[in-house]
């Protein structure tokens, strides 16, 4: 009856966490039904009644899927995401659907149509985004793990802000079937965990090829590794472009502590260069809006969710009124930018140039790993969690919160953030980056670091 006890406990924690505004849909009735299903399984499965929250852009048949948007209000998917089916088959309980930046566009979870998510340690600050609801629920101890999604850092960045583990797999490792599309060449279902082991178990359960997603890679599912006893024999690169002189002092101190821990565990550190990473954010903010403008064309008031009749009463007027009313300001901005960079006369200046730069960014990583580097270490974010409202008036200032995470998404690589200390009480994350499909090496090394670095310790 493990599931039943978990369902009661999680229900109570979800009620207690209401001030965070991290949840969009949950009910005790659905949790109890999940418990009955789990308790009836002949074997407990590797996730043995683990309660897991899902970002609200991962579809389930029992609950609405809104993507944090008014335009999908009332939409219930007729099918489940592959990742959800795999979680359930592994014995997990789907606990709740988590709040998020609308259509996963944002870095603070202030761009949800259903209100902003509060940071669990300081309600005046943001939890990061766009998977801020999932991150906050794990950080607040409501669930041990949650699914988020990454297009350009939307799990690692909030993991860093909230002091939890966030793992983005290689592109193609986890099926995107049932993940609402934003930037199809970038989107990855990704995982939050209280610990590296929890995140690794969940990633292992959802990974592997899927006939319903032709972009999954034909490799066996990832195995969850245990922590390495030490880091002997590992060469860990420090890309100099990721350690600017004006890095926040608390973040810089936490990274120095992480470097010390790597040396103490026998790992070798060496400086490397990824010269095109400095162009990652502008590249991302051309590629992702271009793909988003195409993917979000389907929300027209006819096929999904809310509908608004336009003044002229014809079909185009219905499209425009529905979309103008249903999409929030950040989504509208990105659709406009995406449409602009794809339009005749601007395509070569913006989109083609961004694709060329994306190739150079990916090539930098390939060269670094080919030179004998096993993993890369960087800060996850340039600062700890910022205050709500601090960046909402300047979209570019918000985009720069992703300066250390977006290049990895453009290159399709796996990366994770682990908490490595606190600066003035706020969590700081360190990012490990691995070659494509080397998640196991990255997780095993992160497990070793997690054992020696006090995540809650103040750094100076």
């Amino acid at each position, binding site marked *: 009856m493990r599931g039943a006890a978990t369902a009661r406990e999680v229900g109570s924690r979800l009620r207690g966490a209401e001030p965070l505004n991290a949840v969009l849909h949950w009910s005790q009735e659905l949790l109890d039904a999940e418990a009955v299903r789990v308790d009836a399984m002949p074997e407990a499965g590797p996730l043995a009644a683990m309660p897991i929250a899902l970002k609200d852009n991962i579809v389930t048949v029992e609950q609405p899927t809104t993507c944090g948007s008014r335009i999908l209000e009332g939409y219930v998917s*007729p099918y489940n995401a592959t990742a959800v089916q795999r979680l359930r088959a592994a014995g997990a309980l789907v606990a709740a659907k988590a709040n998020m930046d609308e259509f996963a566009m944002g870095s603070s979870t202030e761009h949800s149509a259903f209100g902003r998510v509060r940071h669990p340690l300081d309600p005046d600050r943001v939890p990061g985004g766009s998977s801020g609801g999932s991150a906050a629920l794990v950080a607040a101890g409501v669930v041990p793990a949650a699914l988020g999604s990454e297009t350009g850092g939307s799990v690692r960045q909030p993991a860093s802000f909230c002091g939890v583990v966030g793992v983005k797999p290689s592109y*193609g490792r986890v099926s995107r079937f049932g993940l609402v599309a934003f930037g199809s060449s970038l989107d990855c279902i990704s995982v939050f965990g209280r610990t590296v082991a929890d995140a690794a178990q969940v990633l292992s359960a959802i990974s592997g090829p899927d006939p319903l997603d032709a*972009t999954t890679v034909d490799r066996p599912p990832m195995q969850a590794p245990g922590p390495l006893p030490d880091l002997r024999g590992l060469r860990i690169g420090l890309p100099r472009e990721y350690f600017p002189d004006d890095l926040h002092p608390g973040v810089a101190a936490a990274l120095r502590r992480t470097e010390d821990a790597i040396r103490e565990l026998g790992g070798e550190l060496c400086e490397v260069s990824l010269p095109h990473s400095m162009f990652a954010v502008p590249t991302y903010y051309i590629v992702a809006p271009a793909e988003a403008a195409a993917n979000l064309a389907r929300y027209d008031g006819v096929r999904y969710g809310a509908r608004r009749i336009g003044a002229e009463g014809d079909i185009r007027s219905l499209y425009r009124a529905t979309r*103008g009313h249903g999409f929030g300001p950040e989504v*509208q901005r990105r659709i406009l930018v995406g449409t602009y960079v794809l339009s005749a006369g601007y395509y070569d200046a913006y989109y083609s140039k961004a694709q060329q*730069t994306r*190739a150079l960014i*990916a090539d930098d990583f390939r060269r670094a790993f080919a030179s004998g580097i096993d993993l890369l270490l960087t800060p996850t974010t340039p600062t700890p969690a910022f205050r709500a409202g601090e960046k909402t008036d300047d979209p570019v200032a918000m985009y720069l919160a992703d300066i250390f995470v977006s290049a990895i998404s453009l290159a399709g690589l796996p990366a994770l953030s682990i908490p490595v200390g606190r600066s003035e009480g706020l969590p700081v994350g360190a990012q490990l980056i691995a070659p494509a499909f080397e998640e196991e090496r990255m997780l095993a090394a992160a497990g070793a670091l997690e054992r020696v670095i006090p995540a809650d310790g103040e750094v100076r």
Partner: protein
Amino acid sequence: MSIGSDQVVHVAKLAELAVREEDLDRLVSQLNRIVDYVAQLDQVPADRPAEPFLPGPRQVVLREDVPGPVPLARPPAELAPEFAEGFFLVPRQGAMDE
């Protein structure tokens, strides 16, 4: 390269997005800020060729094209206000009122 309000209105039309008059100035200013920022890609040196980046598997393998039951949790009739003889019924074009 600067974007004017006429251009924003044109792009919004291409994107099938109604933009309110009172939001136009703010949108023009924000889009210019974004486009000015991404224009720094002009500084990317053009001296190093790189293979175009392709995410995912080198060769996309499609599943066998064998008809089977549609894996929906609920039948199509439950997905729309009206459904008859295998079709979704929608309002007639031009017949929509305020």
